[in-house]
């Protein structure tokens, strides 16, 4: 008997800071609710035994209620509920606000696989490697239907919704290998849209990334796309530019032509690529064509990484080195453009061991 049950887990592993918070609340809820359940069950059993019918001549008292008692059990639970609500809301809010030093990893869900893109441009499917004790912010997008990114050991879960970005963050606390599930039903192989999250030491993480041999960082790849889509035709830094300069734009406030102010976050940038006429920056004409159908979710993630990495004076100007028109036979642009044209756009905080 013991042998069978030795391997049966009864409680999931805890591998993130969130997991401890969620479990603490869960234990509290179990205690309160369990207490109530035991109380009700005990009363049911006790009354059933004590007041069982002893004969057809049993007399019962006429008790029709007791307002004080009834008001008590109407009002009293509310106080307990307030605690449950506030505690739960606190955890939930903290999970939706990533710390500023979080490392950003992009996740794309599609039927039926998970794709990951690291800031250094490394790509992976199915298995996500993250360094221990480092806050990780995931930005997630879906290419088809709603999926859900669920890591039980982290106690975090978020639906990945087509048409927009969602975010979640966690701080892994324990080295190990954990399940990754898609927990929103997404079709035939829903139950096989699974993977593993490997929490590894920082050094191992660096080694892992080195082994992925990226063709340039995410921002580098974005830069290639930027040229491929000829974004620099309009988004150039020179005087005759027909579109806003993108340098230093990301995550700052911009004023739209209807006077509203919005933050140029990932969602805004994504929308501006796919639905450019929707939120036009004040002072510019809505002339940009949509890139819907040309840029897929992965491309947009790369472009975003590039735009976010752009510092003043780094926008490539149009010259004879500019990339050929869209879909022309591609030569790696890195070799065509002089190194002096731009500075390396992105360095992932010295973690990236690449030259």
């Amino acid at each position, binding site marked *: 008997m013991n042998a069978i049950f030795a391997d049966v887990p009864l409680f999931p592993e805890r591998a993130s800071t969130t997991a401890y918070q969620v479990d603490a609340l869960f234990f509290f809820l179990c205690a309160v609710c369990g207490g109530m359940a035991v109380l009700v069950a005990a009363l049911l059993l006790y009354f059933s035994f004590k007041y069982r019918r002893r004969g057809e001549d049993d007399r019962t008292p006429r008790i029709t209620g007791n307002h004080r008692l009834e008001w008590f059990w109407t009002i009293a639970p509310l106080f307990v509920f307030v605690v449950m609500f506030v505690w739960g809301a606190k955890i939930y809010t903290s999970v939706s606000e990533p710390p500023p030093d979080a490392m950003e990893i992009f996740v794309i869900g599609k039927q039926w696989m998970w794709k990951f893109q690291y800031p250094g441009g490394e790509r992976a499917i199915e298995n996500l490697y993250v360094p221990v004790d480092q806050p990780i912010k995931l930005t997630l997008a879906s290419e088809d239907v709603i999926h859900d990114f669920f890591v039980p050991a982290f106690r975090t879960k978020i639906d990945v919704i087509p*048409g*927009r*970005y*969602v*975010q979640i963050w966690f701080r892994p606390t324990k080295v190990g290998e954990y399940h990754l599930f898609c927990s929103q039903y997404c079709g035939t192989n829903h139950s096989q849209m699974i993977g593993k999250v490997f929490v590894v030491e920082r050094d191992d993480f660096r080694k892992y990334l080195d082994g992925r041999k990226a063709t340039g960082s995410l921002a580098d790849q974005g830069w290639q796309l930027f040229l491929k889509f000829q974004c620099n035709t309009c988004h150039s830094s020179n005087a005759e530019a027909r579109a806003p300069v993108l340098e230093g734009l990301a995550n700052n406030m911009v004023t739209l032509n209807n006077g509203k102010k*919005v933050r140029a*976050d990932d*969602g*805004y940038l*994504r*929308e501006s690529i796919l639905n450019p006429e929707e939120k036009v920056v004040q002072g510019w004409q809505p002339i940009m064509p949509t890139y819907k159908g040309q840029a897929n979710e992965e491309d947009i993630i790369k472009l975003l990484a590039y735009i976010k990495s752009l510092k003043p004076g780094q926008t490539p100007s149009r010259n004879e080195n500019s990339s050929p028109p869209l879909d022309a036979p591609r030569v790696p642009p890195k070799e065509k453009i002089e190194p002096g044209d731009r500075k390396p756009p992105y360095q992932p905080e010295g973690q990236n061991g690449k030259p």
Partner: protein
Amino acid sequence: MSEQLTPTKTYYSVFAALVALTLLTVGVSFFELGNWHTTVGILIGVVKASLVALFFMHLLHSSKLSWLAALAGLFWLVILMGLTLSDYLTRQVLDF
């Protein structure tokens, strides 16, 4: 529902008011109102709908039960719209 008949004159005047309000609401749409067209249109619509309900549908002289049913429908519509919009109007953070 067994009270005396409403005189037909009432119906004709309500009808005249409804037509006038229709012309008004269409007329207003030719003025530059910015974002307010729908709001104004809905407000006039509420007046028209009330006229129809109160006089043509005899709600004015109906039993409390009919009022109950009509108001329940409206109340639940407010719940549906209000709580759904409570999501959409507070979403900007991660919204696109």
